[in-house]
């Protein structure tokens, strides 16, 4: 089986008026299925550009990107949208929930953009919300939830279409350390129990310590890439919770 992500000589150049900025200057990497990778680096190091390209939000200026065997660089706008819908889950620092929709409706949102109908959308969303520990919060609006709870809704939303990979951009950046630990244990649980590949961008060594591989960026290039010898363990109890079957209320 080929690696889930296979990038070769990826470059990205932005034009800002007369000046062109080389955000990525030839990045080559592979990411295997089921891995949990932390991407680190100072601001402007190119890690955000790298994540945008991996997330199919943008196309590289040159280079190759095979996602699950699909050459992404040759896809058009709507084909990219479909890949994002089917294979990728996004988690943002500021959650990006739609404020006028309930938790359940936010989670169901990606189902709306699938080609086929989902008759049991509510039940699916319910199950995923419960799996991130939000049973009973389905009808709450984002403003009625704490930061940690909002990020869990966002994680549930990213999971609803059973993606191959989760891309998290500073997912704990807006959360206190206790809540950060909870979110990280959810990620670790998803990775360990369901085998979902996770890439997360972070500034924090503490957060990166949960991953089993850390990639370092500087000046548009990968400068370090090393496995984590002994990843930090999330609470066993939370993993147990994720394993437990969930009752879906009718």
């Amino acid at each position, binding site marked *: 089986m080929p690696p889930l992500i296979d990038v070769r000589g990826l470059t990205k150049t932005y034009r800002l008026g007369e000046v062109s900025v080389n955000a990525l200057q030839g990045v080559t990497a592979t990411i295997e299925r089921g891995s949990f990778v932390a991407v680190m680096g100072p601001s402007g190091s190119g890690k955000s550009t790298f994540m945008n390209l991996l997330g199919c*939000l943008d196309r590289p200026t040159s280079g190759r990107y095979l996602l699950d065997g699909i050459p992404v660089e040759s896809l058009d706008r709507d084909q990219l949208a479909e890949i*994002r819908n089917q294979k990728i889950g996004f988690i943002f620092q500021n959650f*990006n929930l739609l404020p006028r929709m309930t938790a359940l409706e936010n989670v169901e*949102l990606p189902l*709306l*953009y699938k080609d086929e*109908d989902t008759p049991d959308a509510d039940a699916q969303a319910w199950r995923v919300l419960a799996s991130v520990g939000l049973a009973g919060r389905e009808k709450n609006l984002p403003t009625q939830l704490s930061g940690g709870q909002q990020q869990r809704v966002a994680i549930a939303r990213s999971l609803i279409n059973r993606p191959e990979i989760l891309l998290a951009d500073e997912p704990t950046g807006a959360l206190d350390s206790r809540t950060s630990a909870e979110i990280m244990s959810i990620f670790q649980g998803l990775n360990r129990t369901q085998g979902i590949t996770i890439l997360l961008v972070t500034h924090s060594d503490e957060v990166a310590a949960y991953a089993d591989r850390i990639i370092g960026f500087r000046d548009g290039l990968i400068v370090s890439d090393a496995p984590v010898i002994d990843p930090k363990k999330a609470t066993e109890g939370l993993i147990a919770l994720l394993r437990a079957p969930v009752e879906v209320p009718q």
Partner: protein
Amino acid sequence: MKKLMSSMRIAFRALTMNKLRSALTMLGIVIGVASVIATVAIGSGATQRIQDQIASIGSNIIIVIPGSTTSSGLRLGTGNAVTLSEGDAKELVAQCPDIALAAPLVRGGAQVVYGNNNWATGIYGVTPDYLTIRDFSVADGAEFTQQDVEGANKVALLGKTVVDNLFGGAEPVGQVIRIKNVPFTVVGVLTPKGQSSQGQDQDDVILLPISTAKRKVIGINSANADAVNTIMLQAKSGAQIPAAQEEADALLRQRHHLQAAEADDFTIRNLQELFAAQEASSSIMAMMLAAVASVSLVVGGIGIMNIMLISVRERTREIGLRQAIGAKTRDILTQFLVEAVTLSIAGGFVGIVLGIGASALISRIAGWATAVGPGAVLLAVFFSALVGISFGYYPARKAAYLDPIEALRYE
């Protein structure tokens, strides 16, 4: 279908979020549609009224009146000559194949007395054919007959206005009224016709046998005892009007011994032409009003475009997020188009209700006839949807082609 439903739900939610803003945006369309509906209603009401008036005059009518005369170098106006006669009327109907009926008419005015009441009204001396041509019917009592004309009987048919003024609530048929001190028996009351196109009360009239009217009321013309003021002709059909007109012209010229070089000493008028012109001018007026009203629809559309552009800008991050989780160009385009069309159609419906209300109010206050047809309503719905789509398209397209990365980063 599911996607459309959910787009409509999203649109509805977005619109109810900003109730005041949505209402104000809709107001442009509301006013536009309401004014289109009202002006079209007034226009078609006016056309309807002209058609009713044509019907009230009678159908396929040709009017012959005497021409002008020159007396001692003084040219008198049309209708002053005494060139038409009862004989002309008889021959017109006898000799012209396209003429069905001919009714001679003498006209005068007199003070009419019944009991303590009196009333000044128009006196028409006519034959029974006049009733047929003018489409007069009798609501109460009976018409007078050809025998009444031949015997110069003192019988009268009264218009509704005359009855109201002379009799109050009393039963007029069989009563005796005095016209110029001559007693006349009321034999019937005419069915009301209402106003003519010139605003004349067509029910303020007394019809007498032409013979009686000449001898007792209006007086016999000293130059020509046979003279009449007008001859009304009825062509056999609407299509035969021009032929009937030509036949009448030829026959009258021959009977009046006019040389080829001489001008007619009579005038023939065809009411159809008059009414066609009136109808055309009223429909041009209605179209102009509707054109002015549709300008406000366009202004309303610009309002929608404005608000949609603001809405797209405000929801840039939402659009970015939707794109990130897989919304295609078409999904975003549909979402915003549905929103714009919802605004404009909702405005359209309110406008239709308001427009119908306004036309009803106008007919009450101004007394104009208005008619709101299903065509006008359909047209209004169609145009408001069209305005929504055409003015919503640009903002929706702008939203659909946002760059997802920039949209997500937008503050």
